[in-house]
């Protein structure tokens, strides 16, 4: 009897453990009582972003009576998707940081959408070529762009007017304006003429100088004249004109943002900062111009943004495609999304609406997007940039490494990281 008891207890406890591990398998996304197809849409935007997503989901659900989409907020979405993709329970639609495509597409967890595109007669020309390139792997397209963004130059109009300056259009004018607007009080920097806090913008400057981060065959491509031009430009700004001090903007929150409080006269940033500036900068009068061009007239900015993709595990890819098409490839809906979230939609016809073309703050961004390029689609690109390029640039900016050493080391370490993180087919 007692033995029985022990056995029972052990079995119950062990069973409990197993249940705890293996639970949440079924997604329960089958047709419900209403007869509609239920779709799950995963994203990692909470707060305001969640409300914006839900606005779109509600509008879609009301627009037809066959499909019902539900937005599910997943804080650590990519990690959860990893488990879901292998053990079942993957969502039907995934909000997707586009640069990850080159990493995930070779693993066969995303569904190509080419056949849907041709069947429904969608025109690839309606989307930015660069954003589609980022969603493509081995000639197959894996999703459609939901948002596009790029950095442009924000400047403080009042400071420019006081100094009698025009917004810069090239590196030389940028340098002169930055120099003129910088104010030092002894060893204390009061106004930085130009923000140089983010060495991650190297890619953008390199494009302006006429260069590219990577060669076609997957090697780094900045240890050359173009790379040297960028670093020489930075050196002039930082050491000769002292327009910035390392760490100047560190830890300044939204309300104390250096641009809002007039401590930075110019900076590169994107449309995502406009709501912060409008909210906290009641006295801030700012303008935006496309990034100034480099010494040989080259223009450059880095295009980023998100897309929508369908995981291979989705049981209703047709319906998921309906939802993606409705949202990203329809002018009215893309515009509704833009106005709701203040994001630039990936659908070009929506960007031709007066909402964008007649607003002086949006116009420079649509102009910038014409020449902006996405990051190279090598799966090791982000680690290469983060672990090899940026650290060496930081040493350079703090005068702890010479220009040539910086480019040599960044190339050597970068090439190694690219090789180590290349796709294993």
């Amino acid at each position, binding site marked *: 009897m007692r033995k029985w008891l022990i056995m029972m207890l052990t079995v119950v406890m062990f069973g409990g453990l197993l249940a705890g591990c293996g639970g949440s398998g079924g997604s329960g996304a089958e047709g419900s009582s209403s007869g509609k197809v239920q779709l799950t849409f995963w994203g990692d935007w909470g707060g305001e972003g969640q409300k914006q997503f839900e606005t779109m989901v509600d509008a879609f659900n009301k627009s037809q009576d066959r499909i019902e989409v539900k937005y599910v907020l997943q804080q650590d979405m990519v990690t959860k998707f*990893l488990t879901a993709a292998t053990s079942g329970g993957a969502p039907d639609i995934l909000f997707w940081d586009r640069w990850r495509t080159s990493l995930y597409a070779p693993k066969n967890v995303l569904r190509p959408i080419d056949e849907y595109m041709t069947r429904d007669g969608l025109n690839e020309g309606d989307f930015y070529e660069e954003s589609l390139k980022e969603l493509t792997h081995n000639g197959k397209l894996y999703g459609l762009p939901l948002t596009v963004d790029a950095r442009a130059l924000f400047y403080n109009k009042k400071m420019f007017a006081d100094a009698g300056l025009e917004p810069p259009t090239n590196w030389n004018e940028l340098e002169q304006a930055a120099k003129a607007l910088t104010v030092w009080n002894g*060893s204390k920097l009061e106004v930085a003429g130009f923000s140089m806090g983010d060495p991650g913008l190297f890619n953008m400057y390199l494009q302006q100088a006429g260069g590219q981060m990577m060669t076609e065959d997957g090697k780094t491509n900045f240890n050359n004249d173009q790379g040297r031009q960028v670093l020489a430009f930075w050196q002039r700004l930082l050491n000769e004109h002292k327009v910035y001090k390392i760490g100047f903007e560190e830890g300044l929150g939204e309300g104390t943002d250096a641009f809002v409080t007039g401590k930075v006269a110019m900076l590169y940033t994107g449309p995502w900062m406009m709501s912060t500036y409008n909210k906290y900068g009641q006295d801030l009068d700012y303008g935006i111009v496309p990034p100034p061009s480099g010494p040989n007239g080259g223009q450059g900015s880095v295009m980023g943004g998100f897309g929508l993709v369908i995981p291979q595990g989705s049981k209703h890819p047709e319906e998921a495609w309906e939802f993606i098409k409705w949202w990203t490839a329809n002018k009215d809906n893309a515009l509704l999304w833009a106005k709701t979230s203040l994001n630039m939609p990936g659908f070009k016809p929506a960007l031709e609406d007066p909402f964008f073309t007649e607003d002086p703050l949006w116009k420079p961004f649509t102009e910038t997007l014409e020449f902006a390029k996405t990051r190279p689609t090598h799966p090791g690109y982000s680690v290469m940039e983060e672990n090899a390029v940026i650290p060496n640039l*930081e040493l350079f900016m703090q005068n702890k490494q010479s220009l040539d050493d910086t480019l040599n080391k960044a190339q050597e370490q970068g090439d190694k990281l690219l090789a180590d993180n290349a796709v294993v087919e």
Partner: protein
Amino acid sequence: MASVNKLGQHQARMAYLFITPTMLLFAVFMVIPVVMALYLSFTNYDVLSSHDWVGLDNYRRLAGDALLWQTFLNVMYYAVVFVPLNLLISLLLAMLLNKRKVGVKLFRTFYYLPTLTSAVAAATVWIWMLHPEYGLINGLLAYLGITGPAWVSQTETAMLSIIVMTLWQSVGSNMIIYLAGLQGVPEHLYESARLDGASRFACFRYITWPQLRPTTFLVSVMAIIGALQLFDQAFVLTQGGPANVTKTPVYLIYQQGFNQLQMGYASAQAFVLAMAILVFSIISMRITKAEEPIV
């Protein structure tokens, strides 16, 4: 005799029954994952598609991974400064607050409070205090006519900033452990020492410190493990920068495993980290002589 045996057997059976839940949890959540990770470190596991045996390839790649070894040096530097300071400050605080005086409880609470703050919230406040132009610390230095550094952004001071912040956050809980240890030292030892005319320092040197050996071992091992696994504070305060000086092994392992989907290689990195923790724990055990009995 037979009944005694039977009783013993019964007790042994019940004992196994009582430890079963803990051992099961330990096996399922500790032993199995560790064995799995060891196995995975010999494969090219990527979570999604591939899962092939690659032998020692991952370990060969480790040898040439300069960035990984740099992150190890980073946390070693951190541990060498952080662990002794942590022991010293928390022991001093505990001795100061191990008195029956008015207000002592209030101070204990104050010193413990930072422990309750989340790393992210604390780091946000510290970044602000360490700001080169508007921060409290450089503001005070300016009164003395010193131009303070850009603490978290400069290669020389970035790790120091993290050390200061994590000390502030962790001495409180270690102080509590030391307080408990101090209160466990038998009063009669001090009494007889005083009768023999021992000085206060001699009392500390020959009674308090040896009696606290197990406590010191616990605190130092926990501090070493925490130091080698440093992640969140460094991530929020400096994002591993500038120039990789505050990047840590845990950060790299996460990046390699979850961002780059090279879980096999990440497992190999994690095993090296586990070995490092083991070695340092043994060294700490030797130094604090934790295995010797307290007289």
